[in-house]
């Protein structure tokens, strides 16, 4: 078996689940985790005791706490993903490895966080950022400490090299909000915005303004992965993890010194995941792009190969990423307009799109979906999901 094919169709997503998304859940991170996992197990048609593998998100709720609470006493695989915002997609890869090795039969990948009412981004990032010594010695003394700040530097450079504009960024923000109006679970449901609203948004770290930034939210999300025989015996349409890979940029812990600011880990991850799936960007029917900020959508569209390098701005302004466009992106509204569930909500939406469960926001004939994850200073993970 070639390396590129080694995880193809090994793991199948049999269940997805989430809590309500809110600004103030009133529940612990552990309770949110358990509720999301219960929902995913119900969706998969399995009992909680049939879960024998758990993968958690870095520095969130430990596997031990969840296993104990769920009454799982035969846990055979426990893993933690470590790629920042790419961790949800990386977690799918860890689950596939466990299934391929026969270590477990039903692996749950989960994340949950009170990211609004509990710790906020400014507290979390200071504690867990990669290359902490470099941050403390060379960046914090000048007041730079947050993802919005360091990624706005990359956005500014892209504007200079390729003519990307704030209006281009605004098309991403407005499109995500438009999509969220078709998703009752979205935090911004009932709160559409226009390009005029976007342009008037308060500055955060220019060129980023408030409406360039993802939501901070409370909630939990989980998916169940199993083998093909179990998937086909389940109660929902099976969805195959047909390609999955991670990738790192050069100088992973330091953006500033990286020779090519636009060469992120998403680029090699996408190439490897597409090769594993035997697919190309042109085959993808719907894409879930890790939209921590507006420009990162434009950037990753280029990195995966949905458009040429430098052409992401005009691509999003053309309407291509809107429902009805050539490549609908984040029909659920994404991190910008549904909720910040660390990208696990992107995996869930991809599965629901492939099952044709999405009602007003359903992408017709969706058969192949891509999901990206973006972490830290450019770690990448990409999954390709296929309807059976």
């Amino acid at each position, binding site marked *: 078996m070639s390396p590129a094919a080694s995880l193809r169709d090994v793991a199948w997503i049999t269940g997805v689940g989430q809590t309500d998304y809110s600004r103030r859940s009133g529940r612990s991170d552990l309770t949110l985790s358990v509720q999301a996992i219960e929902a995913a197990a119900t969706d998969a048609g399995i009992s909680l005791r049939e879960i024998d593998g758990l993968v958690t998100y870095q520095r969130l709720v430990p596997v031990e706490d969840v296993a104990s609470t769920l009454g799982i006493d035969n846990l055979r695989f426990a893993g933690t993903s470590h790629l920042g915002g790419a961790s949800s997609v990386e977690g799918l890869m860890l689950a596939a490895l466990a299934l391929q090795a026969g270590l477990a039969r039903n692996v749950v990948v989960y994340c949950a966080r009170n990211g609004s009412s509990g710790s906020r981004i400014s507290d979390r990032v200071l504690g867990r950022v990669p290359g902490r010594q470099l941050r403390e010695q060379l960046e914090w003394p000048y007041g730079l400490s947050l993802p919005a700040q360091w990624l706005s*530097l990359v956005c500014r450079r892209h504007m200079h090299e390729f003519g990307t504009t704030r209006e281009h960024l605004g098309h991403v923000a407005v499109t995500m909000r438009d999509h969220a109006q078709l998703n009752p679970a979205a935090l911004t449901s009932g709160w559409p915005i226009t390009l005029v609203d976007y342009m008037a948004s308060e500055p*955060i770290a220019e060129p980023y303004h408030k409406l360039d930034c993802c939501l901070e939210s409370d909630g939990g999300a989980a998916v169940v992965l199993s083998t093909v025989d179990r998937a086909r015996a389940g109660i929902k349409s099976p969805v195959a993890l047909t390609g999955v890979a991670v990738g790192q940029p050069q100088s992973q812990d330091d953006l500033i010194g990286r020779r090519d600011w636009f060469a992120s880990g998403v680029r090699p991850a996408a190439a490897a995941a597409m090769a594993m799936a035997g697919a190309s960007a042109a085959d993808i029917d719907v894409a879930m792009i890790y939209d921590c900020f507006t420009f990162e959508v434009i950037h990753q569209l280029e990195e995966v190969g949905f458009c040429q390098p430098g052409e992401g701005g005009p691509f999003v302004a053309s309407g291509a990423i809107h429902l009805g466009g050539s490549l609908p992106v984040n029909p659920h509204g994404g991190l910008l307009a549904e909720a910040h569930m660390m990208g696990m909500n992107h995996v869930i939406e991809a599965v629901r799109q492939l099952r044709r469960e999405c009602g007003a926001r359903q992408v017709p004939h969706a058969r192949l979906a891509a999901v990206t994850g973006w972490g830290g200073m450019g770690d990448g993970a990409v999954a390709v999901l296929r309807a059976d």
Partner: protein
Amino acid sequence: MNERPLPDVDDPDFEPYFRGCAGGELRIPHCAVCGWWQWPPRSICPRCQSNAWTWDKAPQTATLYSWTTIWRPGLPGFVSEVPFAVVVVELDAIPNVRMLSSSVDCRPEDLSIGLRMETVFRQCADNVSLPYWRPVQSKAH
């Protein structure tokens, strides 16, 4: 906790750099084997894998590579400064060396990519001096 964070100038991985700053010089790790200038400091040369670094004086003029204007700082001590610009510059003669800092003696709206800039050292505490960057003032530079 409303003070600006200061670097640890005694950190052995950075001590030669901050000692240089205290003397009004940018001193950057320079590979004694292959001649590569490395920033940020790494224990091993990424080009030839040697660890024979000398901390040599680098050019103190540069070109603006990118910047961000910060309105909502995440750290204490900067709230009263907003808006302020964090800049990334490429050093003259060794443009693979990019350094992050803040601009001084200008407003954020005066910045544009490609702007010529020069180092200004400012004392931030008794034993801490840091490099900042300002637009090159006159043709004398």
